[in-house]
């Protein structure tokens, strides 16, 4: 019953200070993060052992297939896991010097939108169809505790649209999502994510439903915004080519775990995990007409039915007996790649 009052107190506690970026330490750090839920008295893990650190202003691409946990991992950076009925169950999550591993909603408020800007998956449907673009940008601006007058906020909304290079911004401000093309909607979503000038932008499959020419324009826009704002970037995609276009480092996820992490160029030329290797070889661009594509045999294991040992072994061309027992292997350094494969040296 004391709920409403408690909420008020929380609002008052939201600090007005800016997010501090310390150039000497990682801006975002994830260490053996576990995300999941309790089902019938047992833990059901969706992410188990995601590990990486992102320096301020740096970029990281996360690749993996459906069910690899990449989207849940991103949601953990915005403190929205609860909305999906899951929670952090272990490991560590730090953003901008705050330990947010088991943070309550109250602790997330000064972080969300301000420390991390987030453009969710299928964001083409992310705009409210009954509200104008301006109303939604104003909402995003008011998430921050900065005091803005109405006219300042409007000017700011207009500035955001210019930033994402929306043509005829003045009229777009008063339009609703159905009047906008897919590319325009994605630009508006990015503008909203930038509203509170976050030092890090997280994009989950930002171009998946877009045409190739529009995809290219959006990727170029993101690249320009990063140069202009010095912003860090985490980009989730199932498409290695998209990730390589924007990110200097790439992390591969498989069945909830980080299996490889290295420089983009090096991932493409000399992957040190059989899964990354298989993904690269199954690309259409690798294929000669008249010859079979290199498919990965079998299917990704569903959440809750990960095999013992390395979770990739049933589909792996390099699987040895030692791969089939124990836990998911710890990551280690091989040729400047972080890899979770015990046979990494043999991958060709």
């Amino acid at each position: 019953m004391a709920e409403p009052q408690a909420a008020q107190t929380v609002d008052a506690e939201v600090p007005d200070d800016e997010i501090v970026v310390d150039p000497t330490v990682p801006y975002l750090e994830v260490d053996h993060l576990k995300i999941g839920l309790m089902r019938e008295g047992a833990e059901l893990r969706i992410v188990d052992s995601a590990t990486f650190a992102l320096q301020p202003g740096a970029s990281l691409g996360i690749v993996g297939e459906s069910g690899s946990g990449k989207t849940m991992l991103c949601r953990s950076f915005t403190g929205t896991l609860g909305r999906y009925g899951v929670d952090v169950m272990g490991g560590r999550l730090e953003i901008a010097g705050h330990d947010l591993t088991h943070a309550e909603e109250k602790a997330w408020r000064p972080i969300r939108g301000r420390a991390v800007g987030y453009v969710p998956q299928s964001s083409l449907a992310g705009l409210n169809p009954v509200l104008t673009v301006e109303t939604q940008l104003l909402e995003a601006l008011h998430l921050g505790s900065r005091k803005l007058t109405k006219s300042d906020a409007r000017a700011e909304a207009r500035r955001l649209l210019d930033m994402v290079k929306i043509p005829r911004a003045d009229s777009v401000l008063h339009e609703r999502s159905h009047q906008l093309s897919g590319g325009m909607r994605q630009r508006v979503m990015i503008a909203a994510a930038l509203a509170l000038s976050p030092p890090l932008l997280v994009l989950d499959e930002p171009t998946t439903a877009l045409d190739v020419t529009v995809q290219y324009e959006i990727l170029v826009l993101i690249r320009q915004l990063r140069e202009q704002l010095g912003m860090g970037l985490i980009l989730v995609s199932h498409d290695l080519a998209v990730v390589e276009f924007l990110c200097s480092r790439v992390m591969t996820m498989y069945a909830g775990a980080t299996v490889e992490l290295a420089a983009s160029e090096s991932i493409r030329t000399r992957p040190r995990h059989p899964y990354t290797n298989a993904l690269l070889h199954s690309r259409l661009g690798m294929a000669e007409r008249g010859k079979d594509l290199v498919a990965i045999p079998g299917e990704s294991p569903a959440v809750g039915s990960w095999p013992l040992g390395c979770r990739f072994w049933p589909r792996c061309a390099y699987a040895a007996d030692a791969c089939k027992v124990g836990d998911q292997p710890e990551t280690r350094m091989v040729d400047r790649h972080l890899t979770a494969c015990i046979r990494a040296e043999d991958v060709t």
Partner: protein
Amino acid sequence: MADNLIEVAGLHVNYKTKGDDVLAVRGLDLTVGAGQSTGIVGESGSGKSTVAKAIVGLVAPTQGSIRIDGDLVAGQQATGYVRANRWKVQMIFQDPYGSLDPRQQPLDAVLEAVHQWSRKPKAESRKEALDLLKSVGITERQATSGLRSLSGGQRQRISIARALAPHPQVLVADEPTSSLDQSAQAAILNLLRRIQAERGLSVVFISHDLGLVRYLTETVLVMKDGFVVEEGLTDKVLHQPGHEYTQRLISSALA
């Protein structure tokens, strides 16, 4: 069998809307010979999916004619898609989650199609359906389990088995892998290539993906706003694009 399994001439398709009519296809000619692979590329709204639907008889042309194996199936004085030729062209859809009935067992989905075309006794139809499913890599256990336990790739295999039930001469595949993961895509494309070779099928691939068209097709049409802006041998069109739009598509593609 006629020389050209598919002959589309002067195809126009308009969609009626409350406001102005949408001119989805504005003049398209296409021939597909036996065993050939043809690609139609373009972006959203180019009209490429409408062409696919017109070929299989899901939309009626506003103008123009469509011949399947010599029979006029659409256009003036057409006999329509009668039973005698409908089986010859089958379609695979983009979304294997939407194109299969979630309440139906995969086996029944294929069995229904087999029965529709062969009118064989039940036991024989069942065996044929299981053989078809086996040929696309679906086991009897998977075929008799619920659809919900199957992945996108497995569902697309079932759609392919169903499309093969009437032993068609032409497959029209509309973005058959765009809703699949990359590793599933490779397996499905390998399967389609194998089926095409084994059965001597002609295939029309509708796709936005130049990589897929480059890998799978011999000839290609590039569509934009309902028009064909360029066509020819795939290698030539993709290496020496003549039209500005084709050039833009190629330069926008990553990797």
